[in-house]
């Protein structure tokens, strides 16, 4: 049979290249196509994403805004994406490359586990993400298409949630408690530390407490960063990754937490309802 010889689970070889937008190499004559050149093109950006550990795994919270220059491109952007039953990625930076990257990784993880009959290891998944980012370097150097993901995973071997963040070239860092990316993240970076030092580590909080801290942090980011959406009109999105699968936090339930924050009531913590996606208990 003239089927292609087996590629050991490497999806990038199957689709030939990692998905980066094609860079323009054609020479443009002076004065022509000026309005279409990279310098005047404004790409859409995702803004603030937050990841914190909590007792059962990792919680991700993100605003819903996507901006293009000074304009709001979209107010219902979904920036926390489940890659598989135990991995979620929160994206910031170029929306186009981020979404394509998430699509690529989702296929890549599934391709590996289906063809190799075993799930890709966490290390393998992280390396795959590094590869996707570093492959995007030519775009980064041209000034567009840079994206910075925060990857949250539930490590089944270590039985704990883990947070990884990256720089634009693909360097990977692991965070012990929290991670944040996007334009609003620098405004709140110190606040994470403040919470850990004065209240308690995020990893000791339950889901409700952690959600509340994240929503406050996001609110501060929205106050200090013009590109970060608040939640007067549209609620932020929240997902968590746990041993048993991915939780998508119920939007309507978040309003209770938000209302309490507005009222300044800090005592009682309302329960959070979430939609659970159970993981396959057999690994594949």
């Amino acid at each position, binding site marked *: *049979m*003239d*089927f*292609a010889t*087996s*590629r050991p689970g490497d*999806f990038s070889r*199957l*689709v030939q290249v990692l998905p980066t937008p094609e860079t323009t190499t054609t020479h443009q004559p002076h004065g022509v196509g000026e309005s279409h050149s990279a310098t005047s093109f404004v790409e859409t950006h995702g803004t603030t994403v937050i990841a914190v550990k909590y007792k059962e795994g990792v919680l991700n919270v993100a605003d819903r805004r996507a901006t293009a220059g000074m304009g709001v491109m979209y107010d219902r952007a979904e920036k926390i994406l*489940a*890659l*598989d*039953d135990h991995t979620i990625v929160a994206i910031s930076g170029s929306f186009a490359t981020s979404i394509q990257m998430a*699509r*690529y990784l*989702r*296929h890549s993880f*599934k*391709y590996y586990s*289906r*063809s190799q*009959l075993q799930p890709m290891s966490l290390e393998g998944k992280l390396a795959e993400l590094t590869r996707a980012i570093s492959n995007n370097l030519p775009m980064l150097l041209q000034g567009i298409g840079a994206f910075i993901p925060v990857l949250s995973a539930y490590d089944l071997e270590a039985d704990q949630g883990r947070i990884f963040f990256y720089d634009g070239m693909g360097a990977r860092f692991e965070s012990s408690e929290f991670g944040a990316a996007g334009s609003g993240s620098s405004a709140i970076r110190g606040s994470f530390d403040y919470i850990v030092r004065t209240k308690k580590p995020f990893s000791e909080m339950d889901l409700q407490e952690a959600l509340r801290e994240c929503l406050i942090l996001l609110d501060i980011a929205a106050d200090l960063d013009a590109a970060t959406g608040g939640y007067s009109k549209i609620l932020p999105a929240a997902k968590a990754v746990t041993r048993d*699968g991915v939780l998508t936090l119920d939007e309507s339930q978040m309003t209770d937490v938000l209302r309490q924050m507005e009222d300044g009531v800090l005592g009682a913590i309302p329960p959070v309802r979430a*939609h659970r*996606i*159970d*993981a*396959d*208990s*057999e690994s*594949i």
Partner: protein
Amino acid sequence: MYSPYDFNQSIAHRAEYVEERLKGGAPVVGISYDKGVLLLTVKRTQRKIFEIYDQLMYSAIGNQADVEAVRLAAIDFAHAEGFQRSPDDVSIQRLVGFAISPPLKRSFGDPLSTPNVLRAIFVEMGKRPEKDVFFILNYDGEFSTHSRFAVVAGRDASELAMHEELEKYSDVPDLATALQRAVAAWRRGAQDQPAATDDDADDEATDRASTEDIPDPLAQALEDGEIEAAILERDTSRESKFRMLRADELKDVVATPANANS
């Protein structure tokens, strides 16, 4: 010189060679149920039911290497298509009809290569049970489509018996009922096998087949094997809809005696 006569002879010999090797294959049953689709078989050591894509799964009887080659080719095609277009464009019709069947046929017609020993079942889960599609793909590239259920077995007689068993029902079962029916059909398929061994059937075997006291083929198969069953779930929000059934989910059907369904 290679004449048309030789060609016919060669094809006939190859078919005979393959059929001979497929005879011993343990049947695979596919049934569509209300919340998904089910594939069930009995395996000895090697896994036999595989996930191909979000809404596709596959199983086959035959030579391990050939089963594996078709599996990988199907996964490659499905993922490349699903990524470059969309998961909705990966259909069983495109997969089997255009990506798998033609190379299989070419390889079967090539007198200088070893023929592929394989009979495969592909399943595509639809939004509703009526939309589920089964494809049976033969070693020579021939394929047929089925709805509600489909089976593959080593012999035509076994497949006929299994069809007969499953055609008794016209409703859409739930998973527990689908498992019962699949096991009943599997029994029929495995049972009819010894009777069809006409060439070297000795007197003893013929005697046994003629009496009602035939040992339960499932119980026999489970002595050195186990039931393998997998489902695609229609309504799950998980990234993968495919799931192998756990031993505790299969406990009840294994325990059901052979005559419970007849």
